[in-house]
């Protein structure tokens, strides 16, 4: 039917060009699957496995949203996007949700007309150095050669940091993370700087990870989160509150293993009941089933489970929770109440 669709599209293109699309939720429901933009591959955050099944921390968000809508975490079409194509894909409606380790910034939120629905990972730019260098602080890096990805915010952050601390450096421009690893290991640069999560993932692949250390300084704020288009706040609400549901679930101790039991009948914790739809009408307020949040949590577990399974300390990447711990444990992960 592809050709028919194509010819049909060409024929009616002029007619429907001006017509605004209906509500995103209706489109998604009519299509039967969520189009979710992810990266073409970033360790721990999104990557296809040997069978072509997408896995990762960002992928978990896509699956949770799909589960909240359809009750089926596999009702997702993953659209791989590159740094250049991601925003166009979202703006043009090719994807409904972008969960691609994208930093929430002022201009992206306002000028590019997107709506960040929350933060699923607080990242920041860090430094990795070989232990032999004998450096314990980034402020000791005077005169160092630094491997840096060109054309990114990390390059600007680096320049700012060295200027404010009045020390000099020599940049070694590189194009991709893969290239950076090779350059750094071959000694072409003393320091490699990028997002701390990326540094940890890179270090984990080294033959002798313990010969390298991450410096304590984090020189930028990189709050990464899923985003949607401006203009459909109801759709934004669904994505936002699905993320919040995962966070609340961790706070309330709802996990993928006990959720079947907790969702079966009302418990004596009213907040859990409201979250899982055994009490109140929260689901119908955003146009979903009563058990939408229960489905989202059952898809891949709560926020903490997703973190542990994909990027946490039990994985080769081995990221500590740090800023991404629950607010009750000194971190920044916090959800408004389900009420």
């Amino acid at each position, binding site marked *: *039917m*592809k*050709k*028919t669709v*194509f*010819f*049909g*599209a060409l*024929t*009616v*293109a002029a007619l*429907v*060009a001006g*017509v*605004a*699309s209906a509500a995103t939720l209706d*489109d998604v429901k009519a299509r039967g699957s969520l189009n979710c933009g992810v*990266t*073409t*591959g*970033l*360790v*721990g955050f*999104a*990557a*296809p*496995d*040997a*069978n*072509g099944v997408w*896995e990762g921390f960002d992928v978990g968000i896509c699956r949770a949203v799909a589960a909240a809508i359809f009750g089926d975490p596999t009702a997702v*079409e993953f*659209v*791989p*996007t*590159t740094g*250049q*194509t991601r925003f*166009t*894909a979202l703006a*043009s*409606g*090719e994807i409904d949700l972008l969960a691609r380790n994208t930093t929430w910034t002022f201009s992206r939120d306002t000028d590019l007309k997107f709506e960040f629905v929350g933060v699923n990972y607080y990242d920041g730019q860090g430094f990795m150095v070989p232990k032999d260098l004998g450096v314990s602080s980034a402020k000791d890096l005077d005169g160092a050669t630094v491997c840096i990805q060109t054309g990114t915010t990390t390059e600007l952050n680096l320049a700012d940091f060295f200027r404010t601390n009045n020390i000099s450096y020599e940049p070694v421009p590189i194009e991709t993370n*893969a290239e950076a*690893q*090779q350059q750094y290991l071959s000694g072409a640069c003393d320091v490699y700087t990028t997002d701390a999560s990326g540094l940890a*993932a*890179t270090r*984990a*692949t*080294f*033959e002798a990870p313990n010969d390298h250390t991450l410096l304590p300084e984090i020189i930028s704020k990189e709050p990464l989160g899923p985003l949607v288009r401006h203009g459909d706040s109801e759709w934004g609400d669904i994505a936002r509150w699905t993320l919040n549901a995962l966070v609340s679930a961790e706070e309330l101790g709802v996990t993928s293993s006990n959720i079947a039991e907790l969702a079966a009948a009302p418990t004596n914790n009213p907040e859990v009941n409201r979250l899982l739809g055994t009490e109140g009408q929260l689901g119908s307020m955003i146009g979903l089933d009563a058990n939408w949040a229960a489905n989202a949590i059952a898809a891949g577990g709560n926020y903490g489970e997703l973190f542990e399974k994909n990027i946490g300390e039990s*994985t*080769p*990447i081995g990221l500590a929770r740090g800023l991404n711990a629950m607010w009750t444990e000194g971190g920044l992960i916090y959800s408004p109440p389900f009420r």
Partner: protein
Amino acid sequence: MSDTNTHSVSYVRESMLAESAPPSTETGTIKWMRENLFSSVLNSVLTVLSILVVYWAVSKIGPWFWNSVWDAGSLTECREILAAKGMTGHDGACFGVIKDRWQQLIFGFYPSEYYWRPVLALLVFFVGITPVLFDSVPRKMLILTILTPFVMYLLLWGGAIWLPLMVVAGFGVGYLAMKFLSPVNGLLGTIGAIILPLIFWLYLAGPIAGWLTFYAPIGFEFVPSKSFGGFTLSLVIGIVAIILSLPLGILLALARQSNLPIIKYSAVTFIEVIRGVPLIVWLFTASLLLNYFLPPGTNFDLMLRVIIMVTLFSAAYIAEVVRGGLAALPKGQYEGGDSLGLSYWQSMQLIILPQALKISIPGIVNTFIGLFKDTTLVVFIGLFDPIGLAGAIRASTDWNGIYWELFIFIGVMFFIFCFSMGRYSLYLENKLQREHR
């Protein structure tokens, strides 16, 4: 000396000496080496230096291949296996990644139970193209060639068989229109042969195919374009673009030489604009800009957009290559055609193009090889060609940090395809050699 002769005369030799072996320096390997490797002092020095360089390269790279690990599920496991042999990760390749992911590198995300379909499609392609490539194959096989694109479409994307059949039927409509309307009026026949199939495709093919599919759902499981990846994607884009760009390029080359200004300047503009902008820009146009022009909700297949762009791009290059061939023909050939009273198309078909294309073969094949390798550029718009898949494989925690093994595999695969194309072009040049007959 003469004791072999009964009547010997001391100063005349009457019989031949037995053949003795040539001096050892004038025979076999030694002669070859003297002539080819050590013919002068400079050449001897260069030979020794070359041997040293080759030895150095092999001694550095050889062990890496020799010690390679094939049975490992992750890079860590590879390193453990190497460490157990007392080696570091630099001493041995980890081709376990190829063993683990080769199916993905070749088929992308194509459903594994249907892997036979792209393979069969490639075989069908080879069968379909033999009558074109080799004239020793019976001409009747050309019917198969005409059906090949439809069979390949069915095999690759699947779906009901009725839509491709309807497309074929459209050509049938055109043929019938030509046959029955031409006797009435030649122009009417030509117009009918163009208009009627278009009407058929636009308004009848879809509903009839839908109706037939509803009542007789015969066909294959539909596989969407986004499942294509790896070499399947490269080959589909490459082959389709190669097949479409050759006729388009020839037409453009002829149009550029046309005496009709509109045709001529449209062709010049098209060629110069397409050729003057990098392919990557056209790919971004296909993936980004078209999204804004198309109405929201229409999802005009990204792979189709890429194929169209790559085809147009290579057609512009082919046009210039063919124009070179046309320019190389002496004016007498054109005049000869005219003096025989041939029409434009007849003289092109019988006299000009066979010669011009023969001259252009190396250039055309060169463009095709470039085009095939350029398909890897689609990685920048998020399609999973082999290079893109290598990145995706590296993004799994198992294989993060592996480079050379993947690139070597991809390089070898590309080399096989490009080298075969180059060999075929040499064969064709030799076969069409007319000057020394």
